C-alpha cells in the first residue's frame, strides 16, 4: 500500500514538474517570437501572406456564424424584452452583447478551431518533414521566418475578424428584429447608437480580441513547434491547440471583463 501511495505522489510530482517546465519553455518561445519579429515587419509580405491564410480564409465561417448568432440574439432578445414592453431596446441588447462579449469570444473560438489548428498542423508537419531543420541548416532562423510572421498574421487578423463578426451579427439582429418581427427601425438604431459607448464598449471589445489573438496564435504556434515529429504527435498537438486556446479565451474573457466592466 505505501508503495502505491509513493508511486502516486511521485506521478503527481512528475506531472507538475513537467507542466511547469513546459510553461517555462512556452514562455521562452513566446519571448523569442517577439524578439525575432523584426523581419515580419521589414518584410511585411511574409506577414500579409499569413493574414490571408488565417484571416481571409476564416471569413466564411466568421461571417456565417456571426449572422446566425445575431439572428438568434434578435429572436431571443425580442422574446424576453417584449414581456416588459421594452422591445425598442432590442438594438442595444444585440449590439452590446456582440461588441462586448460574443464578437470577441466567439470569433476567437472559431479562429482557434479554424486557423489555430491549421497553424499547429502546418508547423508540426514542417517539423516532422525536417523543413524546420533544413531552414536552420540554411542559417535561417525558423522562429523569425516561420513563427513570427504567423504570430503577427494571427494577432492582426483577430480584431478584424471579431469586428466583422459583431457587424454582421448586428445585421442579423436587424434582419430578425426589424425586418421579420417588425420592431421599429428608428428605435432599433437610435437606441443602439445612444447606448453603445466608443471607449467603454468598442475599444474594450477590440482590446479583448487583440488579447485573444495573441493567446490563440501563440498557443497554436507553440503546440506545433513543440509537437513530437510523428503523425500521432501532430494530431495530439492539433487537438491540444483547440482545447487549450478555447479554455484560455474563456478564462481570459472573465479576467478582462472583470477589469473592464466593473460597476458599469
Amino acid at each position, binding site marked *: 500500500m505505501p508503495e502505491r501511495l509513493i508511486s502516486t505522489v511521485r506521478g503527481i510530482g512528475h506531472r507538475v514538474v513537467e507542466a511547469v517546465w513546459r510553461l517555462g519553455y512556452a514562455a521562452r518561445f513566446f519571448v523569442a517570437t517577439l524578439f525575432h519579429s523584426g523581419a515580419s515587419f521589414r518584410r511585411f509580405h511574409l506577414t500579409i501572406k499569413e493574414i490571408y491564410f488565417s484571416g481571409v480564409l476564416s471569413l466564411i465561417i466568421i461571417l456565417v456564424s456571426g449572422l446566425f448568432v445575431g439572428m438568434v440574439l434578435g429572436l431571443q432578445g425580442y422574446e424576453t424584452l417584449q414581456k416588459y414592453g421594452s422591445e425598442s431596446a432590442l438594438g442595444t441588447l444585440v449590439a452590446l452583447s456582440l461588441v462586448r462579449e460574443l464578437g470577441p469570444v466567439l470569433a476567437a473560438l472559431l479562429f482557434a478551431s479554424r486557423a489555430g489548428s491549421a497553424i499547429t498542423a502546418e508547423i508540426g508537419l*514542417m517539423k516532422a518533414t*525536417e523543413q524546420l*531543420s*533544413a531552414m536552420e*541548416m*540554411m542559417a*535561417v532562423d525558423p522562429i523569425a521566418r516561420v513563427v513570427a510572421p504567423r504570430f503577427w498574421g494571427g494577432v492582426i487578423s483577430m480584431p478584424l475578424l471579431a469586428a466583422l463578426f459583431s457587424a454582421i451579427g448586428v445585421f442579423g439582429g436587424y434582419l430578425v428584429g426589424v425586418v421579420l418581427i417588425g420592431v421599429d427601425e428608428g428605435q432599433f438604431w437610435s437606441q443602439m447608437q445612444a447606448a453603445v459607448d466608443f471607449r467603454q464598449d468598442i475599444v474594450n471589445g477590440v482590446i479583448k480580441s487583440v488579447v485573444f489573438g495573441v493567446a490563440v496564435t501563440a498557443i497554436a504556434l507553440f503546440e506545433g513547434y513543440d509537437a513530437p515529429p510523428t503523425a500521432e504527435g501532430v494530431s495530439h498537438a492539433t487537438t491540444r491547440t483547440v482545447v487549450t486556446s478555447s479554455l484560455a479565451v474563456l478564462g481570459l474573457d472573465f479576467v478582462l471583463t472583470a477589469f473592464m466592466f466593473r460597476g458599469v
Partner: protein
Amino acid sequence: MASENLIEIRDVNFTYDVRPVLKGINMNIPRGKVVAIMGLSGCGKTTLLRLIGAQILPTSGQVVVDGQVTSALDREGVFALRRRMGMLFQFGALFTDMTVFDNVAFPLREHTRLPESLIRDLVMMKLHAVGLHAVWNMRPAELSGGMARRVALARCLALDPMLIMYDEPFTGLDPISMSVIGNLVRRLNDALGATSIIVTHDVQESLRIVDYIYFMADGVVIAQGTPEEIRHSDTPFVHQFVHGEIDGPMAFHYPAAPYGADLEVEAAHA
C-alpha cells in the same frame, strides 16, 4: 594557412539524455574529398552530421570546421558557418508551400540582396545542374522521390557551399535515381571544389563514388579506409556489412532470453 582538413573531429563524445550516442570519435575530412560515413541505423551517423552543422554540441571533445571550433561559436558565428554549408536531408525537406523555383531561390533571397532577375538566372543554373530546370514551376508534392532530392540538392548548392552533407541520400530510390544522385554527388563536389560527407548504408553505390570511408558501430569508428581497402577488409563486421551477410558479428536475432522461455516449452523439456 588553411589546414588540409576541412573538418576535424577530436575525441568527441555525445550523450543524449543519459544514453551515450558517440563515444570518443576521431575523424578527419580532407578538403575536396567525398567521404562516406557508414554503419547500421541508430549508430550515431546522423548525430555526427548534426554536430558538424552545430545543431547540437558535443558533450566533450571538439568539432573543428574550417579552423573554427563549433562549441566556441556564438549564434551569429554558427549561422555564418552554416551559410557556407549545404545539407541534403533524407527526404529532401523541400518547403511544401513553395514551388521548386522558390525552394531553390530561398537561400538566395534570405541571404543576399540580389535583384530578382539575377536570382532567376542562378536558380535556373542550379536546377539545370541537377537536370531539372524543366520543373521549376511544379510543387514538391508533384515530384518523385528522386526528383525531390535533386531539387533539394540544387537548393543546397544555391550559395555555393564549401561543404555539402548528405543524410541518407539513397534511401528509398530506384537503381536509376540512385546512380543519378550518386553521380551528381561526385560531379558537383569536383566541379565546385567542395567537400562532401555522405551518411549512408548503401554500400555498393557509396564504394563507387567516394574517396574514403569511415565505418561506425555503436558510437565508435570501427574501421576506415579507401573503397579498395574496405572491399577487402577482414574486419568481421565490415565484411558482413559490405557483403550483406545475414549472420556475423551482427546477429540475426535481437539479443533475447532463450527462445524456449517465450514459448513456455521449457517446463515440458524439464
